[in-house]
Structure formats: structure tokens, C-alpha cells
């Protein structure tokens, strides 16, 4: 068994003292009282860490909401709100390129996540029953791909050879499953109460029924986290676009538009006036750029709080992966 898998299983069941620690919010009696210098240093360090994470996001949001006047007065990015307007967002959503890109991104994310989750959940359950037919062989087949792969160019040749150039499926199928995520799901499913499954089997439930009515409902947390991982992967898909549809600007997802427009400083592709048209000159271009940045962030920020609380339940593996 891979060490990763074992680490996972250890993490699933929180150590008893971890639970105790959670309840006990106070310093244990045996610990020496904190020094003022130590506490200050700790506070400052953590404060700096938080600021480094949050200040850039704050500046970007404020700038995207600023009027041309405010941007001019600040001479660039706006730090303190000073004349706020939603103009940039109105213009951005009025632009066909951004609207199309938003739809494309949402579509790829929705379809991709559904495909990935369906395939992964089925595969993970199929491999989770001990002593089933050929499960050792299939597991080896999966794990081997983590160590050897054809690499960039042979994969590209296979996808284009199958006619994937410029096709939607080339953004989804080649990277639809992560063996890592399947292994995580599998280790959770293996630990689903065997009594429950046994009872269902006696009641005449088949494996499909057990997966749908018992295993899935009892592992909601890990399912949510995996869906987030896959969803974020699709939402962020960038390089696949560069490989398989670099010229079809009407098929570009948001990240690629962000890349061409903000990073490379190109005019918005597909728009008449290379830029945002004449009527839109009141909007600061910088606000507009930042509005696109915010747009790529928003869906993530909406989903994140709901899933984030489940990270604790044992998804420490993402870190190993990354």
C-alpha cells in the first residue's frame, strides 16, 4: 500500500487527543505562561501573513469598483474607496467576449465536474470492496499512471489524433480523472460501515444500489471536497485551451481571456474596437481589467465557504498532490 494511502487512513479518524484539544480552548496547566515578546512576535507574523493574502484581493476589488476619477487620482490601483461605481461590471457583462467566456467557463466546469465525479465515484467504489475480482490488477493499473506517463507531446498527439483539436471534449476528457482523488474516495468508501452494506445486501440491494443509497450519503463531506477539487481544476483550465483551441477566441474560457487581456495587454478578442468600444471610454480600463479578475474569483468565493469546513475531515492529501 502506498504511504499516501496509509497517511490518509490515519487522518480519517482524528486522534482522540485532537478531539479533546478542540474542546479545551485554554492553555494546559503544565505549560509555562506565555512571554509578552513571544506573543507579540507570533501576532505580528500571523498578521503579516494574513495581510499578504488579503491586501492584494482588497486592492483589486476596490479598483474594480472605482470610477475613472478615483483611478486617475490614485494614479493606478485604488487602495482606499473613493468614488465607487458598478460601471466596470456593467460594461464587462455587456461585452460579448466576456459573456461568452463566462458561459464557456461555467459550462466546462459543470459538465466536467459531473463527468469526473461520476467516473471517479464509480471507479472508487468498484475498487473498494475487498477481495473483488481483479481489483489488485485494476488498482495497479491506476497507480502506475502516477509514476509513468507519456508526457506532453504524445498526449497531445493522441488527443489531436482522435480529432480533439478545437473540440470541447479535449478540455475535459484527457484530464477528467485524477487517480489521486480516486484513491482518496476509495479509502473513504473502504471504511464505510461493513455492517450497513451487509444489511443492505441481505435485503437484496445490488452494488449500484449500495453505492447510491448507502455509500454516497454516508460520505458527503469527501464527495463535496472532491467535487470542489475537480470543479476548480476545470474553472482554472488554461493550458489545455492553449493546446487545443488557441485560435478559436469564441471558445475561450474566462482564464484564457484574462490571460490575453490582462497579462498580455491585448485588446479584448472579438470586440469591434480592440478595447471596449468608443462609448465605453468613461470606464477606466484598469477598473475593467480588475473586474475581469474579480469575475474569475467570484464563483470560487461563493463555493469555498461551503466546502472549506470539510477540509478538516481528512483531505490532507491535496497538499501531497500539489
Amino acid at each position, binding site marked *: 500500500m*502506498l*504511504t499516501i494511502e496509509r*497517511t490518509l487512513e490515519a487522518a480519517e479518524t482524528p*486522534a482522540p*487527543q485532537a478531539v479533546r*484539544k478542540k474542546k479545551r480552548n*485554554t492553555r*494546559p496547566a*503544565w505549560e*509555562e505562561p506565555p512571554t509578552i515578546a513571544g506573543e507579540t512576535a507570533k501576532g505580528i507574523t500571523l498578521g503579516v*501573513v*494574513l495581510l499578504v*493574502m488579503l491586501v*492584494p*484581493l482588497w*486592492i483589486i476589488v476596490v479598483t474594480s469598483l472605482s470610477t475613472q476619477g478615483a483611478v486617475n487620482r490614485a*494614479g*493606478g*490601483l485604488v487602495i482606499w474607496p473613493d468614488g465607487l461605481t458598478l460601471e466596470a461590471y456593467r460594461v464587462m457583462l455587456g461585452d460579448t467576449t466576456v459573456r461568452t467566456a463566462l458561459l464557456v467557463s461555467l459550462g466546462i466546469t459543470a459538465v466536467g465536474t459531473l463527468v469526473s465525479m461520476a467516473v471517479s465515484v*464509480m*471507479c472508487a467504489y*468498484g475498487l473498494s*470492496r475487498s*477481495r*473483488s*475480482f*481483479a481489483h489488485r490488477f*485494476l488498482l495497479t*493499473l*491506476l497507480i502506475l499512471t502516477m*509514476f509513468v506517463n*507519456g*508526457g*506532453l507531446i*504524445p*498526449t*497531445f*498527439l*493522441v488527443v489531436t489524433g482522435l480529432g480533439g483539436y478545437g473540440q470541447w471534449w479535449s478540455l475535459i*476528457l484527457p484530464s*477528467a*480523472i485524477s487517480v489521486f482523488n480516486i484513491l482518496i474516495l476509495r479509502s473513504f468508501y473502504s471504511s464505510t460501515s*461493513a*455492517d450497513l452494506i*451487509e444489511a443492505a445486501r441481505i435485503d437484496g440491494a445490488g*452494488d449500484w444500489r449500495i453505492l447510491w443509497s448507502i455509500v454516497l450519503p454516508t460520505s458527503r463531506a469527501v464527495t463535496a471536497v472532491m467535487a*470542489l477539487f475537480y470543479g476548480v481544476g476545470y474553472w*482554472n483550465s*488554461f493550458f489545455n485551451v492553449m493546446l487545443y483551441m488557441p485560435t478559436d477566441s469564441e471558445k475561450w474560457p474566462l482564464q484564457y481571456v484574462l490571460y490575453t487581456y490582462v*497579462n498580455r495587454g491585448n485588446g479584448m478578442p472579438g470586440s469591434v474596437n480592440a478595447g471596449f468600444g468608443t462609448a465605453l471610454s468613461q470606464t477606466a480600463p484598469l477598473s475593467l481589467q*480588475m473586474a475581469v*479578475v474579480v469575475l*474569475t474569483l467570484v464563483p470560487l468565493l461563493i463555493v*469555498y*465557504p461551503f466546502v*472549506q469546513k470539510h*477540509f478538516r475531515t*481528512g483531505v*490532507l492529501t491535496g*497538499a501531497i498532490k500539489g
Partner: protein
Amino acid sequence: MTTATPTRPDRGTRPARQNWRVRLRRDRSLILMTLPAVVLLLVFNYVPLFGLVTAFQEYDPLAGIWYSTWAGLDQFQRLFGDALFWNAVRNTLYLSFVQLILFFPVPIALALLLNSVLSQRVRNFIQSVVYLPHFFSWVLAITIFQQMLGGAGALNHFLRNNDIGTWDVMTNPDTFALLVSAQVIWKEAGWGIIVFLAALAAINTDLYEAAAADGAGRWRRLWHITLPGLRGVIVLMLVLRLGNALTVGFEQFLIQRDAVGYDTADVLDTFSFYYGIATGDYSYGAAAGLFKSVISLLLIWGANKLAHAFGEDGLYRR
């Protein structure tokens, strides 16, 4: 014999010794469930393995893989005589090394710091903030860096206003290694603490109490209890990092390569992209990719041997 072994509950319906035909029939729905994943892996992971033949060919997209002319080791000969290739190898190893030194200790330190915060609320808040950038795309992360540190960014604006002069971090080849390390730290260090937090939670608190009773101070407890408790995870992460020494992040360099120049920013992955796909010289790029894969496998193997030498499990057991 079989009756003597402790039985697992699920075995009731799945006895061990049976004719394979019976077992196949019994488990047919399980096999069916794995089928879509297996097909995807075969098509997009195993077939490309055979596609590596292109590295030994003069691949012609019109002729296809079956009819392209055989080139033997010509591509590799070309590769090993190519200064640009060695430039990419050098950059990869250098950037990997700098990132190891600068990035690796950060999540450990952050996890220790966070673990010492008593209030669960504050901890949860900090955790949700530092995990967030992990979910940003590299395009987004680099855009944010560009806006903060770039030539027209917040930092230079401040410097200009105070007559200090400008400092364009984003396009300066000399500080590129520091820049990419800073980006990786900003984006991934927070996420990296999860493993260490889990390992910290698994350390028995009685050990601390006993040590404190014996007169061990804060730092001695850190050195004699906490760090040994983290040793297994640290070695595992180190093994993974060493095994991936030739992978330093692909999109991150792809996006920034032009701004900084290939002299400093071309790594092995971008090399095989630019000289393989972008220029249509597929065989050449495939050869570079194959070179990287083979060395990577050797590195993983070597790193595991190292872990075993330290008495740890590494990625797999001995």
C-alpha cells in the same frame, strides 16, 4: 487454514477461494463501475506511452505514427548538443533548488505557529484565508503579482511617488528565482500546512505534559517531541519534492517566460512545449519529454532509497 484467519465482515458474501468465473459473475457490476475510468486511463495515459516512439522518429503529422521515418537516437543526439536544452536543464535544477530551500520550511513553520494559537476561531479563520490562493489559477495568481509588483503595479507606484526609483520585479531575470519562489509560497504554502497540522494533531499530548513535568522548556519540547513527531511527514514531503525535482510548475513559467526571457525562465516542460508543439517539431519535444520522465523516475527511486536509509517509509515501503 482459511478458518483460522480472522474474517473481515465483508467477506461473508465475498469468500476468498472460488472459481474465477464465479467471482467474475458475482463482481460484474463492480468491474463495470471501474470501466469508464479504465478506458479513460488507457486512452489518455497508456496509449501516449506508446506514443513515446515518436521520440525515436522523424515524426510527420501527415504520415502519422505508423509511417513516419525511423530516426533512432538522432533526436537525442541533437538534444544533447543543443545549448538551449542544457539551458533549460540548468534553469530547472536551479529553480527547483531555490524553491526547495525557500519554500519547503515555510509550511512547517506556519503549521507550528498556527498550532500554538489557542483560539479555535482564530485558527479556523487563518486557515480559510491561507488555503484560498491554492485554488487560484496561475493566470490569476500571476495577474495579482503583476498588479502588485509589476512596472505599473502598486509597489512601483508607491516607489515613484516617494522618489525612490522603480524596481520592476516581474521582468528582472536576476531576481526571477526569488520571484517564482515568492509566488509559490504565496499560492501554496498555506495549503501545504494541512499535512503538518494533521501530523501535529496526532502527537500524544501526554508526552508534552510529561516533558514539562521533567523540566523541559518550550524549545526543548519543540526539539525533542514536536519535530520527531513530524519527521515521517517531513521525509515524505521531501521525497516527493526530490522526486519531482524536474517539475517546477509549468503554467507559472509558460505565462512568464516571455516577460523574463527564455535565458532564465525556460524550464524542461516549457522547452518541450516550445520546441515540440509550438514549432511543430514533435519528435524533438517528445525526446526532451522522455529524457525528463526517465530522469524523474530515477529521482523518485533514489529519493525513496534515501528515505529508507533514514528509516522512514518514503513513498512506498521497502
